[in-house]
């Protein structure tokens, strides 16, 4: 196995553990729950084939689902996020989008990463919160919880960048 694969497997295990052991225990008025684990999908190389993204998104989501007893809900939302990722990357006109580069702050830049991660996390969270509650009644309330949780997740994702890619 090459170094890259081992790095990604480690990342996978770390994001899952951080999610189920720490993030799920953050209590902020009982409404906000950051979903940090999407970091794994965000950090896949820019040229990752789309079907690989989808399959890994499913694997990641279903593992989280098993820990929190919600089979299908996280899987569905992270697959949705993996599906949207290439569109967000293409729309952002980043150079080297066909190269094996990790889309991180250190590789591409802070403001690009903030937009990229922000949009994808928001898409994932809104999708997740509506699938979880399975109704559009209380639309504003659910939307607000999704957006608030997205902000928290984004903060954790950005902080993690400085821990993972230390110089």
């Amino acid at each position, binding site marked *: 196995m090459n170094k890259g694969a081992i790095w990604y497997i480690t990342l996978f295990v770390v994001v899952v553990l951080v999610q189920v052991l720490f993030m799920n225990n953050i209590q902020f008025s*009982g409404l906000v729950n950051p979903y940090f684990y999407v970091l794994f999908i965000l950090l896949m190389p820019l040229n990752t084939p789309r*079907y690989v993204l989808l399959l890994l998104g499913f694997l990641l989501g279903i593992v989280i689902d098993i*820990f929190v007893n*919600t*089979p299908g*809900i996280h*899987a*569905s939302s992270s*697959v949705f996020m993996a599906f949207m990722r290439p569109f967000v990357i293409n729309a952002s006109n980043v150079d080297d989008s066909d190269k094996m580069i990790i889309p991180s702050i250190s590789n591409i830049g802070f403001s690009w990463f903030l937009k990229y991660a922000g949009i994808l996390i928001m898409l994932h969270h809104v999708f997740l919160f509506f*699938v979880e509650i399975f109704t559009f009644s209380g639309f504003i309330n659910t939307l607000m919880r999704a957006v608030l949780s997205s902000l928290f997740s984004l903060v954790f994702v950005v902080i993690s960048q400085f821990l993972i890619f230390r110089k």
Partner: protein
Amino acid sequence: MRGLLNFLVKYHVLFLFLFIQLVCITLIVRYNSFHRVNFLNSSNTVTGKIFENYIGVVNYFSLRKINDDLARDNTLLRRELQAVKLADIDLTLERRANPDLFNAISAQVINNSVNKQYNYITLNKGTSHGVKPDMGVIGSDGAVGVVINVSKNYSTALSILNSRWSVSSKLEKSNHFGPLRWDGNDPGVVALEEIPYHVHVAVGEKVITSGYSAIFPEGIPVGKVKSVEHREGDTFQKIWVELSTDFRSLTFVDAVENVNKFEQIELEELMKDE
């Protein structure tokens, strides 16, 4: 044929996406039925082990609070024991009538959540300790949930904070009963439903389990009435109940089983067809 093949190849990502979503939706919908695929939940060995090790570390930091809780429980139990000793004639009579009506197994909460729509609790006891599905889970402050999945050493329980489940409860004074259901918002407040308008409900009145569902014994505390709403056009009043258990800090619980449950259910089944 060639055209169809080209079409499939061209849009293979979209088809894969739709296919996976279909799988996910199937999982979500099938999960609604009460008993589910046994490995897709947190009572399996791997997740159970991870949660158990983690909680071992976390509890170390809250030992002080746990000690206080246990000491308080001890005092309460000692006081009750004293009361029972004073009235021991009643006890023997009661025992003869209901020999060991409820069986209890103590367990530790190793995973728990309050901020989802459907919250679950994972316990560190399983079939090898005698835990079975449909056992009630009771904390030191009152009713907590019901066991749904059990593996050899772990079990998962539905928490009261799970809108897929309701507890049959009643008002302590008037004995009027109804389902107690969480609406998914505040993890400290649930709604007692189906209490008709003519029943006078006082704020602060105690709400306890009714014992009708055979999951909990009768009289386990659930909470106190927080507020009562009268809505135009509704047949029932809306009663908000403040839970007596703080679900954010659950540590030790008991899984209880009604020994005569099957007898009760069997008897009730007889009536269903009529």
